[in-house]
């Protein structure tokens, strides 16, 4: 994985520090063109990996990338699935089973039949695979080396103790997409422990890692020790703790944790992207 990964929260009005900033972001990125412009800034500054949720608007970004193969020839997307609000709102509106039906069938008769059968048989692993395939459709023809399970789902499965799904997800990602499975979680030490138990070795785990311990469940010390002692491939996210830490201080802390492989960040202006990228490079050398 690249040392620097560009994130997408800023495009979808996700701001953990301020609802007001979220609204401002929603206004700025109301068109896909505005998103692509910022992606281009990041690309031109040498960033090659974009990690994004499977939001409907990402499909339009993918269309753009596919239609300009020369411009984006070494561009990689790391999909994170699912975009949880899409499902949560559907469950509220239709109930769980109807919501599942709506997301599973594609346009092909085959998927619909498979989905129906899986529902009747209560084959949840098969349903999960079909949902993954439905989410992956928008990325066809795009380099997706690592495919992530998004944190609400990861942590839900983790809490429920339904660890089989992690194994099935990992196998499906490897087999069908020739990609590495990744897991986003707010409970990194626990997640790693479970994955190890399940035989998923040296896993890619993306988690909040920051100097003030924000969203580091189980405690900052536990995180630091896990990163230092355990064998896995950590990606640090929320390194600025939603803006509560100054960039220099934030990157200095994260880069001091020697085993962190990659750092994920999102920004909306060229100056900001450039500054953050240079800081990471400077602190990493």
């Amino acid at each position, binding site marked *: 994985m690249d040392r620097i990964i560009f994130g997408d929260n800023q495009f979808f009005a996700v701001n953990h520090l301020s609802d007001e900033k979220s609204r401002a972001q929603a206004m700025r990125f109301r068109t896909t063109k505005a998103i692509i412009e910022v992606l281009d800034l990041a690309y031109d500054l040498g960033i090659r990996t974009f990690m994004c949720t499977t939001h409907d608007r990402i499909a339009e970004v993918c269309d753009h990338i596919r239609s300009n193969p020369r411009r984006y020839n070494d561009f990689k997307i790391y999909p994170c699935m699912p975009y949880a609000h899409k499902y949560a709102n559907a469950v*509220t509106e239709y109930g769980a089973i109807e919501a599942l039906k709506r997301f599973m069938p594609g346009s092909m008769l085959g998927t619909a039949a498979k989905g129906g059968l899986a529902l009747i048989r*209560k084959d949840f692993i098969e349903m999960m695979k079909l949902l993954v395939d439905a989410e992956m459709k928008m990325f066809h023809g795009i380099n997706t080396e690592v495919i992530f399970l998004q944190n*609400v789902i990861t942590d839900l499965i*983790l809490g429920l103790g*339904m660890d089989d799904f992690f194994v099935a997800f990992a196998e499906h990602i490897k087999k069908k997409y020739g990609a590495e499975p990744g897991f986003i979680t707010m409970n990194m030490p626990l997640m790693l422990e479970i994955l190890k138990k399940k035989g998923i070795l040296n896993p890619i785990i993306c988690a909040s890692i920051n100097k003030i311990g*924000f969203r580091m469940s189980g405690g900052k010390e536990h995180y630091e020790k896990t990163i230092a002692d355990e064998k896995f491939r950590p990606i640090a996210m929320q390194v600025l703790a939603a803006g509560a830490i100054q960039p220099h201080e934030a990157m200095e802390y994260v880069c001091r944790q020697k085993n962190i492989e990659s750092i994920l960040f999102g920004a909306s202006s060229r100056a900001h992207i450039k500054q953050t990228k240079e800081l990471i490079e400077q602190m990493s050398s």
Partner: protein
Amino acid sequence: MVKTGLVGLGKMGISHCAILNAHPVVDLVGVCDSSKFILAALEKHGKMNCFTDYKQMIRQSDLDCIFVAAPTRFHADMVCYSLEKGLHVFVEKPFCLNSNEGKKMIDLALIHNKVNQVGYHNRFIGTFNEAKRIIARGVIGDIYHVLGEAFGPVVLKEKGSTWRSHKSEGGGCLYDYASHVINLIQFIVGTPNQVAGTVLKNIYSQDVDDAVYATLFYNNGLSGQLSVNWSDESYRKMSTQITVMGKKGKVVVDATECKIYLRQENKIEGLEKGWNIRYITDLTKSVDFYLRGEEYSAQIDHFIDCVLKGKTENVSSFESAFETDRVVEMLVADAYSRK
């Protein structure tokens, strides 16, 4: 270990299930739902005992406490039965659909001396607690008006088929969204004594309201306004905000920021003249297991802690939730008095 059972595996139930199952001092011994579909997933891939009858679960499981997250119309029966069987009870919001049911549950909890809590999780968010503290300390002076708002994208089409779309089952924006705001207003500045000008507006739903607008009155002269709409697509998720006006300043608080405007500097609180912002990152304690927000784990930690210590005083007691229900009843009565 606290032996715990859970009834209802809807959105909140599943979330409680995961947090309870991961909790270091909780032993989640049984879960119960009427949908065999959801149960089948847990039975096949989880490690809990599954039931379709909550009474059977209680009889067979030797529980210390129970979490009730079934639809609101079932709350009274389930909660009363559990209390009579000697269990501590956590129940989802809204608490119940009429005052008689509510009184009965409060009385039973008192008689049996059991921990009782309702899932108003906003009470466990750092920013709202900070707002409450600042106002109680008189930092913004005598308060004269409160505005409670919540907006989100739940019902955006003219159709709906779950219990949330049925008034008789506790669906609708008033029960689902506005109850949170009313409960928070109560938590921060107290419960209104009267309401007026209530509008329960159908926007897309047929049977239930999609928006609630009303004026609130307090005996001490404080006034308030409620403005809640769950059919507002411009919001990505539910966003709740409380604004409190005082003679010396005001507080504007949501789940991420507590903004304080002061007409004069307050040295004791370290607040400057003009705008001050306190962020959630400084006001949130980390939890052992995180799912969707610290507050969901924090409210469960509080409940379990009360069970362990035998403490019946609670941040979100039946009684406090009952006050919310009473305001909801007043709003309904006021709205229908004009129809």
